[in-house]
């Protein structure tokens, strides 16, 4: 039957109920990919966390560097301390050592080292000793022992001097400190390396994952087909790819040889980690070959042979390859090029993934209504980007180590840390629904008291690191165990009558301006955030006072070694509950480690505070 027919109608009729069943292996492939994807779903979560963690670690490490730098600064006075101690030891005391002499001696030390407390203890040593030896002996003894000790302090930090070695022991511990701080530094460095490496690794991980999850599937598909079907171009190259793809690390293809060589270039952890990644990336690289047109296949395969990691991102392999090549050369240097590479990869990723366009196409062209809706949603998102939050927090102050920023002699004394209240206002800006940048302003008072101290009024003595207020007599504070006597008090013939036992209270107050990021792990009505960042603390209160056991209190002065501005590194977890549209209740325990609090003589005092911030935020 022949009839004249419009060609359009012919096709319409024929294809109206056209159905065709696909071969079974298509579903098998899909299933494989879906299961693969499910397994990998965990990675981005950790990746994002590791990003936050990396920032925090870097912050802490930087803090550590600062702190150690301050500690090493402290080493200068150590020599002086030794001299002090030894002045007492070889000649048990210069008796009524004419104050003028002592002063001249001390004066010379002061010129070198400018530590006032030298005066105090020196005089005390002299006053304590038996009135046997002459002032001349005293002089010579001082000078020789001084030099001897200077050596010992630089050397092993010896135990040369005799019985009254409190001060020397102290010194040893101090003298050791430079060593410690060095080793700390080293460990810090190595840590930071690890951190850097691990972050970059995780970046790799992520890239390879996204590559696979988004783009990879399309392409993998082609590959398998290629394997079974042998395409027109480059059948050899493609099938080679396929074997390495399926066999993974075990296959003996050229690609993997290249991997092995890259192993040799690198060392240790980095290596294994990198290799694991290479394995993955290889796959994605190869898959991209699959889709890429014929000419790419050859070039990419060859680039894989040249540099183990170069193949990671295939088409633009040469760029990436170079970056990785340099990264392999040195562990420390690796951080920079690795980052570069990461960036490069990201860039390539975005180039290589066309799905976004498709998505757009889908929404725009075919679902006009939905688009409107999306816009509306986007609008509401934009609307709620900002939020303010008045907050209140009990603050628990403490130190990570025994130490005293006032004077090393108080390091061993018991300290009680006051709990105070921090009040402030927080501002949040939502970068995405999960990621927020936070700032604000808080007041925070950090007070602690040093127990078991002794204090007395003195015309000449001073408490170390404290600038006395202007009044007739300085208050000298010392450890009860020291039990040394101010010679000026001897003159007054009034040995210990005016000494009081009690506690020394150091009060500091700050205005804190935090800059933090928070990432929402859970972001529903109830949410959990991870928070990290830094705070800048501006000193606005500085006071040292003493309280006697009888409850008498007097002001000693201001600590001289507090920086006007210092920083803290902050880590915390936030819990929130949205109880009404734009209102959220927050509870955020934060750990804030203070960095660079003291300009000098931190006395191994490593303060931190924990704040339990709570408040209600209003978003608009």
């Amino acid at each position, binding site marked *: *039957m*022949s*009839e*004249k*027919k*419009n*060609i*359009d109608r*012919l*096709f*319409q009729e*024929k*294809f109206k109920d*056209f*159905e*065709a*069943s*696909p*071969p079974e292996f*298509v*579903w098998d*492939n*899909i*299933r494989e*990919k*879906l*299961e693969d*994807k*499910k397994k990998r779903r965990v990675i981005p979560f950790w990746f994002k966390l590791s990003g936050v963690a990396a920032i925090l670690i870097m912050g802490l490490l930087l803090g550590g560097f600062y702190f150690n730098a301050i500690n090493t600064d402290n080493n200068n006075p150590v020599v002086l301390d030794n001299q002090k101690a030894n002045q007492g030891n070889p000649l048990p005391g210069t008796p009524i050592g004419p104050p003028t002499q002592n002063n001249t001696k001390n004066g010379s030390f002061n010129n070198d080292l400018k530590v006032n407390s030298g005066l105090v203890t020196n005089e005390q040593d002299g006053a304590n000793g038996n009135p046997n030896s002459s002032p001349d002996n005293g002089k010579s003894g001082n000078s020789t022992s001084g030099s001897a000790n200077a050596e010992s302090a630089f050397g092993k930090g010896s135990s040369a001097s005799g019985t009254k070695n409190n001060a020397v022991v102290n010194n040893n511990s101090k003298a050791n400190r430079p060593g410690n701080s060095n080793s700390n530094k080293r460990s810090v460095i190595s840590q930071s390396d690890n951190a850097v490496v691990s972050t970059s690794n995780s970046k790799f991980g992520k890239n390879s994952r996204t590559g696979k999850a988004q783009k990879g*599937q*399309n392409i993998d*598909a*082609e590959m398998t*087909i290629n394997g079974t*079907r042998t395409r027109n171009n480059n059948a050899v190259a493609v099938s080679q790819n396929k074997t390495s793809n399926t066999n993974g690390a075990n296959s003996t293809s050229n690609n993997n040889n290249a991997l092995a060589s890259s192993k040799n270039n690198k060392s240790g952890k980095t290596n294994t980690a990198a290799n694991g990644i290479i394995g993955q990336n290889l796959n994605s690289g190869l898959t991209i070959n699959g889709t890429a*047109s014929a000419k790419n296949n050859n070039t990419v395969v060859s680039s894989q042979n040249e540099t183990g990691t170069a193949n990671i991102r295939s088409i633009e392999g040469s760029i990436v390859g170079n970056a990785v090549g340099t990264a392999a050369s040195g562990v420390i240097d690796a951080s920079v090029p690795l980052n570069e590479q990461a960036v490069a990869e990201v860039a390539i990723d975005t180039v290589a993934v*066309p*799905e976004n*366009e*498709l*998505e757009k*196409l*889908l929404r*725009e*062209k*075919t679902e006009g*209504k*939905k688009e409107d809706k999306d816009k509306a949603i986007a609008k509401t998102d934009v609307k709620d980007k900002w939020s303010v939050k008045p907050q209140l927090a009990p603050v628990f102050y403490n130190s990570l180590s025994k130490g005293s920023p006032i004077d090393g002699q108080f390091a061993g004394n018991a300290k009680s840390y006051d709990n105070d209240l921090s009040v402030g206002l927080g501002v949040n800006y939502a970068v995405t629904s999960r990621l927020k940048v936070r700032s604000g302003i808080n007041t925070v008072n950090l007070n602690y008291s040093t127990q078991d101290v002794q204090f007395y009024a003195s015309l000449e003595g001073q408490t170390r690191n404290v600038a006395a207020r202007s009044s007739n007599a300085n208050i000298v504070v010392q450890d009860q165990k020291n039990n040394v006597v101010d010679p000026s008090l001897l003159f007054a013939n009034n040995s210990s009558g005016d000494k009081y036992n009690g506690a020394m209270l150091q009060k500091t107050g700050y205005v804190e301006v935090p800059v933090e990021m928070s990432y929402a792990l859970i972001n529903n009505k109830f949410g959990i955030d991870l928070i990290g960042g830094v705070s800048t603390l501006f000193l606005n209160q500085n006071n040292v006072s003493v309280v006697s056991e009888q409850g008498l209190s007097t002001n000693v002065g201001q600590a001289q070694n507090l920086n006007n501005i210092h920083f803290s590194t902050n880590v915390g977890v936030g819990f929130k509950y949205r109880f009404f549209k734009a209102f959220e209740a927050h509870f955020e325990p934060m750990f804030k480690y203070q960095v660079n609090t003291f300009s000098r003589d931190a006395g191994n005092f490593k303060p931190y505070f924990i704040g339990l911030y709570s408040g209600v935020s209003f978003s608009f």
Partner: protein
Amino acid sequence: MGLDDLIKECQQNSIRAQEQLYRLFAPKLFSACLKYSRNRADAEDNLQDGFLLIFSKIDQYQFKGSFEGWAKRVMVNNVLQKYRTKGVFEIVTENLPEEADVEVETETVSMDFLLGIIQQLPDRYRMVFNLYVIDGYSHKEIAEMLSISDGTSKSNLNRARMILKEKIEAQQGNSIPTAK
């Protein structure tokens, strides 16, 4: 279990539900892939990629309109995307007859033959012809989808018609004598 429930389960990433959904829609969507692809192998690839895309985007399905329509759009867009990025055929706009009638013996023209000649069309012609003739999109819509102009779409369609007509006539010419 209704289709909506099945889709909801797919949104939860249940492999079992995904398989059921695949079994339900694969034949229809595979036919679309066959029409829009160069050959059967490509169509299988495209079906696989398209389904993966559907599963990854199924969260965006709002349960408004038919799921089949939505899935087909995803599928077709995926194919268009693929061929759109490969090879550019810039065609001079010509004045060609709007309608092309062809003398055919309906019995002798097989489904496979028609599919074959569609697949043999250059990518752009094939896409435009499928979109316009079989799936009923307007030239304006096609122009947007393929990032081409209305005129190019019309010109491509006419070109496609002419090629198809020639091929059908050639086949008729060959087969009719042998049939007689």
